[in-house]
């Protein structure tokens, strides 16, 4: 599904990524761990086609980046800590806007469906500005799911969420995983990663230092490796 091969990213004296390699199979639920500044967001942005690697190869479902970015974007949904939503538009207007840019044919139908999925149908005519952070993040997930992507990328999706909203979002992600969506998310929340993700990738100073199935590592080991 995702193939990352020898990816470097640097500018001037700053070397953010220094040779990252991994493959992710279809249906995997993976956490990309690392401290702030380790390079995990940069890596995710490269996979998301928002940034270009200085060298190395990235491909998604055999479509290579950045050349075939358009095909990649068709099968990928992205949720960041920024919701990418307009506060002065209603939930429905936001989704319709992104739906049009995604060339959706059954727009109305899809919008209602994803709103239902994230449990925001009642609030569809309300301005996003009036939404709580948790609701905005759910709506952001709805936006990412509009075009039924096979792959979901998330960049620190839980930052700034209260307990209940995190729980809510976690359930949604688990549901998507159960349905076969491939999920890759960056986080520095080790407990979340251990409890829910099936595979862990740990990045330190731009290098992949650990790539393991969650079951094969204890919490203590992970904490030591992380610090």
């Amino acid at each position: 599904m995702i193939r990352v091969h020898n990816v470097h990213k640097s500018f001037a004296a700053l070397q953010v990524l220094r040779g990252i390699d991994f493959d992710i199979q279809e249906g995997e639920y993976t956490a990309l761990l690392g401290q702030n500044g380790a390079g995990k967001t940069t890596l995710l942005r490269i996979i998301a086609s928002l940034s270009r690697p200085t060298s190395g190869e990235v491909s998604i479902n055999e479509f290579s980046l950045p050349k075939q970015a358009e095909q990649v974007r068709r099968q990928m949904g992205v949720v960041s800590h920024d919701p990418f939503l307009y506060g002065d538009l209603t939930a429905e207007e936001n989704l319709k806007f992104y739906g049009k840019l995604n060339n959706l044919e059954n727009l109305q139908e899809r919008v209602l469906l994803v709103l239902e999925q994230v449990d925001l149908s009642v609030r569809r005519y309300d301005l996003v500005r009036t939404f709580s952070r948790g609701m905005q993040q759910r709506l952001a997930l709805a936006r990412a799911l509009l075009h039924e992507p096979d792959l979901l990328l998330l960049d620190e999706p839980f930052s700034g969420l209260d307990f209940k909203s995190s729980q809510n979002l976690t359930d949604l992600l688990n549901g998507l995983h159960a349905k076969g969506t491939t999920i890759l998310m960056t986080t520095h929340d080790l407990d979340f990663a251990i409890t829910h993700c099936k595979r862990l990738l740990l990045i330190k100073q731009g290098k992949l230092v650990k790539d393991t199935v969650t079951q094969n590592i204890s919490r203590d080991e992970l904490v030591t490796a992380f610090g």
Partner: protein
Amino acid sequence: MKQKSLTVDLVLITLSYVAVMVALYMAFLYAPTERTMGDVQRIFYFHVPSAWASFLAFFIVCIAGIAFLKSGNEKWDKMALASAEIGVLFITIVLLTGPMWAKPVWNTYWSWDARLTTSFVLWLIYIAYLMIRQFTADNERGARFAAVFGIIGFVDVPIVYMSIRWWRTLHPGAVIAGGSGSGLAPQMLATLLVSVGAFTILFITLLRLRLKSIYLEQDVNLVKQQF
């Protein structure tokens, strides 16, 4: 490698020293005194070559900008930055020496004629260019902004000149026609040409030295990062 590069530096520095000395000798002693303007006309041997050097510098900013956008290779970005800084230096000399000459000859420090106004606008454009470099993070994006602005700035130069010329020629009562260069005495012409040559060598030397210091800065930052 290092040794060879140092030799080139030394040769360039010696060459610009000799060339500037010869140009100084010719400007002050060899060239005849102009009949109507007197000695003040000699500033022309610094004014015109400075203008030439600044155009050369801004041309390099534009070309290096295009090369950077096309290739993403940082060396072009550094080249553009170094060239812009030196270009601003020379265009500042142009703007300072102009009024020194104008006051005794035109009896005014400044006149809004086409060439003066264009030089002034040019100065503003490249000051803005340096401000972009200062106010954006030192990353790929900042470099791209600068490249884009450098390209537009240079494309703009002839357009600005043309529009202002139109404005002044269509406008009655332009105070002074800024014509010069016609009917120059042969010694004067020789001095001017030597001077232009000297400033070109000086420009290349400065560009090379500034580039080197930019690379040194980067190396220092690299070392700092490791501690």
